[in-house]
C-alpha cells in the first residue's frame, strides 16, 4: 500500500530545503519560497487530518515498503490513526507559523530556513512513522537542526543551551534504544502496530528479555525528558530562552508533544498493564511537576523563561491524564486519556501563540525583562488583545481550548488518584496567578516613554496569530473536532486485557 500523501507531507520540507541549498541565492527568494512551501505543507496537513475517515477508524493513508531493510525486517511504514492525526495537524499549523514569524531573520537566511524546514520534516516523521526503527531515526535526526538553530541563531548562551538540549535527549534516547531492541528481540519486528497487538493484547510480556516494567520505564525515560517532567526539565527553560522565536514555537508547540505522543503510542499502548500498576506514583510525579512548574514560573522575570516554566506545569497535565488508565469502569480512562491528547494539541497552539507574541514583543521593545516592559496595551493594542486571549487560554478559561483538555484530565484521573489530582487542580489557581500578573505587568498600567513610536503588528505578523487564535477558539467551543478523531484510536488503546 502506498498512498503517498504522508510521504509527501514528511519530505516536502526537506525537499524544499534541498532546493534552497542548490538553487536559491537571494534572501527574499528564500523567504518567499519557504512561505509557499509552508502554506502547501499546512494545506497538506489539513487535508490529511480531514481525510481521516472516523467511521472506519484504524490506520489509514498508509505508505508502506515492507522490505525496506530486509535483513532487519525493518519497514518504511507511515500511517495515520486517531492518535497521530491531531499531531499532524498541529505540526502543520505550527511549522507554518514558525516559517512566517521568521520573516525578519537577517542572519544567514538561507541556512536558517534550510534547518527550519529539515526540523519540520523530522518532527512530522516522528508522528507518522509506525515502524520503530524509522521512528527512532526521525527522533534522532530532529536533534541536528535543533542544535544548529539554537547555537547559531540563538541569544544568551546558545551553545550551552543547545548542547544541554542534545545531551538530555541523547540520554533519554539511549534508554529508548535498549527498550526498542528488547521489543524487537521479543517479536522479531519493528512494526509498532503489530507489536502493540501482540504484546498489548494477546501474548504475555514473558517473551521480553527484560521485565516489562523495566522496558516501560526505559521508554518512559526518553519521553519524560521530552515532555518534560520534573526533575529532567531543566534543559527546557535554557533552550527556550536562548532559541530564536520560531524555534521556541516549534519546541514548545511540537517537540514537547513528541514526549506525550510517545507515552500514549508506546508506553500506554504496548504496556497498558504496567501503566495501570504504576498509576499512582506517576500521578504523584505529574501533580508535583504541575505544582512545581507553576510555583517556579511565579519567580521568572524573563518572559520566555516564564512561558517555558509554565510549559513544564502544563505538560504535567498530559501525564496526569494518562494515569486515569488505572481507573476501573465508568469510562474514566477514556475521558482522561482523551484529555491528555487534547491537552497536547491545545498546549501546542496556546504556547505556540504565546511564543509568537513574546517574540513580537521582544522585536519591538528589545527586551524580555518583565520589569522593563509596561503599558504595552496602549501602544500595540492588537498584540495586547492577542496576549490576553493567549493568557486566558493558558490559564484554562472555558470557551478556549485549554479548559476542555484540563477538565477532561481532571474528571478522568480523579477517580483513580483523587488526592494527587486534587493537588494538581490547585495548579489552575497558580496559573491564574502567574498569567494575570504577567499580563498586568507588561500590558497594563501607563505606557512607558521609552516605548514611544512602537507600531502594532503588521498584517504579515497578524496572520499566524489569528490562525492560532481561531484554532484555540474552535477547539474550545466545539471540541468534537479533535475528540471525534481521537475517539477512533482510544478505545483500542484502553480496552486492554482486564485483570
Amino acid at each position, binding site marked *: 500500500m502506498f498512498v503517498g500523501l504522508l510521504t509527501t507531507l514528511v519530505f516536502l520540507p526537506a525537499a524544499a530545503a534541498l532546493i534552497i541549498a542548490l538553487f536559491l541565492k537571494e534572501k527574499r527568494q528564500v523567504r518567499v519560497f519557504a512561505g509557499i512551501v509552508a502554506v502547501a505543507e499546512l494545506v497538506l496537513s489539513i487535508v490529511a487530518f480531514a481525510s481521516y475517515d472516523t467511521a472506519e477508524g484504524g490506520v489509514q493513508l498508509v505508505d508502506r515498503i515492507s522490505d525496506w531493510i530486509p535483513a532487519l525486517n525493518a519497514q518504511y511504514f507511515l500511517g495515520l490513526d486517531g492518535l497521530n492525526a491531531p499531531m499532524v495537524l498541529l505540526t502543520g499549523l505550527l511549522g507554518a507559523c514558525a516559517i512566517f514569524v521568521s520573516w525578519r531573520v537577517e542572519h544567514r537566511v538561507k541556512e536558517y530556513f534550510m534547518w527550519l524546514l529539515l526540523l519540520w520534516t523530522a518532527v512530522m516523521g516522528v508522528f507518522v512513522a509506525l515502524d520503530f526503527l524509522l521512528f527512532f531515526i526521525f527522533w534522532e535526526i530532529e536533534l541536528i537542526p535543533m542544535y544548529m538553530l539554537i547555537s547559531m541563531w540563538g541569544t544568551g548562551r546558545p551553545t550551552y543551551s543547545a548542547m*544541554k538540549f542534545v545531551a538530555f535527549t541523547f540520554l533519554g534516547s539511549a534508554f529508548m534504544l535498549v527498550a526498542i531492541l528488547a521489543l524487537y528481540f521479543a517479536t522479531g519486528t519493528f512494526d509498532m502496530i503489530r507489536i502493540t497487538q501482540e504484546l498489548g493484547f494477546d501474548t504475555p510480556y514473558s517473551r521480553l528479555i527484560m521485565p516489562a516494567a523495566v522496558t516501560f520505564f526505559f521508554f518512559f525515560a526518553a519521553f519524560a525528558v521530552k515532555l518534560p517532567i520534573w526533575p529532567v526539565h531543566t534543559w527546557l527553560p535554557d533552550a527556550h530562552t536562548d532559541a530564536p522565536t520560531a524555534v521556541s514555537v516549534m519546541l514548545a508547540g511540537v517537540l514537547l508533544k513528541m514526549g506525550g505522543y510517545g507515552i500514549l503510542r508506546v508506553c500506554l499502548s504496548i504496556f497498558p498493564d504496567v501503566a495501570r500498576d504504576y498509576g499512582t506514583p506517576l500521578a504523584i510525579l505529574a501533580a508535583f511537576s504541575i505544582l512545581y512548574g507553576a510555583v517556579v514560573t511565579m519567580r521568572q522575570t524573563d518572559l520566555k523563561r516564564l512561558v517555558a516554566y509554565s510549559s513544564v506545569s502544563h505538560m504535567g497535565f498530559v501525564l496526569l491524564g494518562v494515569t486515569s488508565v488505572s481507573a476501573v469502569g*465508568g469510562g474514566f480512562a477514556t475521558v482522561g486519556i482523551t484529555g491528555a491528547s487534547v491537552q497536547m494539541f491545545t498546549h501546542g497552539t496556546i504556547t505556540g501563540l504565546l511564543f509568537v507574541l513574546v517574540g513580537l514583543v521582544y522585536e519591538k521593545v528589545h527586551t524580555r525583562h518583565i520589569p522593563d516592559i509596561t503599558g504595552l496595551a496602549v501602544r500595540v493594542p492588537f498584540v495586547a488583545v492577542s496576549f490576553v486571549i493567549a493568557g486566558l487560554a493558558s490559564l484554562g478559561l472555558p*470557551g478556549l481550548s485549554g479548559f476542555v483538555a484540563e477538565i477532561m484530565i481532571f474528571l478522568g484521573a480523579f477517580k483513580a488518584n483523587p488526592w494527587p489530582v486534587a493537588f494538581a487542580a490547585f495548579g489552575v489557581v497558580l496559573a491564574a496567578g502567574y498569567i494575570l500578573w504577567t499580563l498586568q505587568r507588561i500590558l497594563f498600567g501607563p*505606557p512607558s516613554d521609552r516605548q514611544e513610536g512602537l507600531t502594532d503588528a503588521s498584517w504579515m505578523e497578524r496572520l499566524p496569530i489569528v490562525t492560532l487564535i481561531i484554532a484555540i477558539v474552535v477547539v474550545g467551543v466545539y471540541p468534537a473536532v479533535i475528540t471525534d478523531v481521537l475517539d477512533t484510536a482510544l478505545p483500542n488503546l484502553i480496552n486492554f486485557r482486564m485483570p
Partner: protein
Amino acid sequence: MISESAAWAIFFLPIASFLIIGLVVRPFFNRFSKISAYLAILAIGGSLVLSSYALKSVLGHEEAIGWAAHEWFSLGGGEAFTFSIGIYMDSLTAIMLVVATSVSLMVQIYSMGYMKDDAGYARYFAIMSLFTASMIGLVMARNIVQLFVFWELVGVCSYLLIGFWYQRPSAAAAAKKAFIVTRIGDFGLLLAILYFFFNQDTFAAAGLNSLEIPDIHQAAVMGLIGTVALAWLAGGIFAGAIGKSAQVPLHTWLPDAMEGPTPVSALIHAATMVAAGVFLVARFFPVFSPDPHAGMTAAMTLVALVGGITAFGAATIGLVMHDIKRVLAYSTISQLGFMMLALGVGAYDAAIFHLFTHAFFKALLFLGSGSVNHAAGTFDMRYMGGLRKHMPWTYVTFLLGSLSLAGFPFFAGWWSKDEILAHAFNQGGVGLVVYGLGIVAAFMTAFYIFRVVHLTFHGEFRGGVEKKIADASAGVVRDGAVVTITADEESKRGEHVHLGESPVTMVLPMALLAVAAVVAGFIANPPFDLGVIQAHWFSHNLVMAQEPLLHFEEKAAGIEVGLATVASIVALAGILLSYWIYQAKGISTDRIAGAFPGLYRLLYRKYYIDELYEGGLVNRVFYRGLAFFAAGFDSRFVDGIVNMFGWTSRNLGRAMAQAQTGQVQVYGLGLSAGIILIVAAFIVWG
C-alpha cells in the same frame, strides 16, 4: 409556554451582540462606535422580553421545563461518556433571567450617558453583552460542567470590566485580584464537580448522569450519595459561592472591584457576578438539604454562619468608609451575607426574594453614586454635600433606594429582609445566633446608608474633586492620613466642578429602578391576593419548583407581625441615629472616633485582612518564601546536578586527555602494568 429555541435566544441575542461589536464594529467601524450601544441594548431588550415570557411560562408549573440535553462531544463512541449541554428552566432560572436582563438593560441605557466619549466605548458594550450572556448561560445551565463554563466566563468578564481602564495601575491590580480570589473559590467548585463524576458509576446504576443538575438533585434526595460525601460536595460548591459572592474570607476582591466604571459596579453588585454565588447554592439546594424536615445539616450550618458573620462584619466596615462606592460595596457584601444566611437556615425562597429586591435597589444606588460622581467628580463623601438642590432626580431616587435597603416598612427591601430574619428566628438554635447577627447588621445598614444620604445630599457642598486635589497637593491631613487622590480623580485634574443633574439617559434608568425598589417586594410577594396577582406567588412558585423533590412545607404563610415590628423599629432607629449625628449634629463624628480609636482604626483598615493576605500570605509566605525557595532549588540544586554531570565529564575527559601523550613508552608502561595486574589476580584468586 416558551419554546426551547426562544429560550436559547435569550442567551444568543447578547452573544450575537458581543460577536458583532467585537469582530465587526470595533475592528472595522470604530468611528461608528455609537452603534455598539444600540446593538447591545436591542439585544438585551429582546432577552428581557423573552425572559419575562419564560417566567410567565414556568409560573404554576410544578416541575422544571425539561428539554432534552444536546450532545456537546462524546467519547468512546458515546459509550464511555457524553458531555452534554441543555437548558434547565424552573422558576429559579426564570427569576434570575428576569433580574439579570432587566438590571443589565437599565445599566446599559445608563452607560450610554455615563461612558459617552470614552475611547473604549465599543469594547465596553461588547464585554457588557458577553457579561450578561454569561450570566444568562449560567442560570440556564442544565449540566454542571456547562454551568462551570459560564461561571468562569462571568468571572473573566468582570476581570475585563474591572480592569476596563487598564492604563490605571490600580484598575489592573483590582481586576487581577478579583479573578484570582474568586478562582480560589472556583477550585472548591471544581473539586465538587470532580467528586460528582467520581460517583458516576453509582449514578449510572440508577440511570442517572452525575453531571446533569436534575439528576444530581434526584441522587441527593434519594440518598444515592452518602451523608458525608454530600457534606463534602456541599462544601465544595459553597467554596465557589464564597468566592463569587464575596463572603468572608474571600470578600476582599469586591471593594477593590469598583475601580471599573460605575455602571459595571452596578451590574456586578446587583445582578451578575455576585448573585451567581447565591444562585449556585440555591441551584444545588438539595445537596445542602436533602431532607428539609431533618433540620439544618452541617453544610447548612456552615452556610448560615458564614452568611451571618459576613452580614455583620461587612456592615461594620461600611460604617466608616469615606468613599461612597466603598460603602455600597461593603453593603453588597453584607446583603449577600443575608442571602447566604437565609439559605443556611433553609429559607430558600426568602434568599432568592432578597436577591430579587436587592438587585433593583443596589443597582439604583450604584447608578446614583455614578450620577453623583458625574457632578462632583469624586466618590469621596468628605468632598460632597448639598447635592440635593443640584440634582433632585438623583436625590429622590437615591433616597428611595436607601429606604429600601434600610428596610423601611413596605419598601421592597423590608419585605425580603424581614422574611429572612423571621425564618432565622423560627429556625432556633444556630438560627437564633444568625438572627442576632442579622438584626444588628440591619441596624447598621440603616445607619450607614443614611450616613451616605446625609453626607452626599444634605448640608453644604464641600468642593468636590477640585477641592480634594487642592487638599492633596497641600498635604492636608484628614482622619489621620494625608489626603490622597485616586486614579479616577487624577483624570479630572484641571477640570472645574459644575454641579447639575445628569442627562436623561442616566436619570431614566434610575427612575425606573426606583419604582422597582419601592414596589418590587410587595408586588412579588403580596401577603394577600391582588386581583391578577396571587398572594405570595413568588415564594410559592420557588418553593413549588422544589416541592416534588423536597416536600417543602410553605412556612412563609404571612408576615409575622411581631418580628416585622422589631425589624422595622431597628431600621427606623438606625435612620434616626444617623439623622441625629450627621444632620442634627447631635454629636461630632470625631468625638465618636476619638472615643474608640482602636476600634475605629480596625474598621477603617478593614480588619487588616488585605494586609494579611497580600503582604503576609501572598508576598511573604508564598512569593518570597515558597516560590523563592522553589526557584532557587530549581536553578541551584536540580540544574546544579545537571551541570555537575557536565562539569565532571568535561574534566574527566580533560584528565584522560592528559594521558594521551603520544609517547609509546607511556602506553607500553600502562599495558605492562595491566598484564601484571591480571596475572596477579589469577594467581591470587585463580
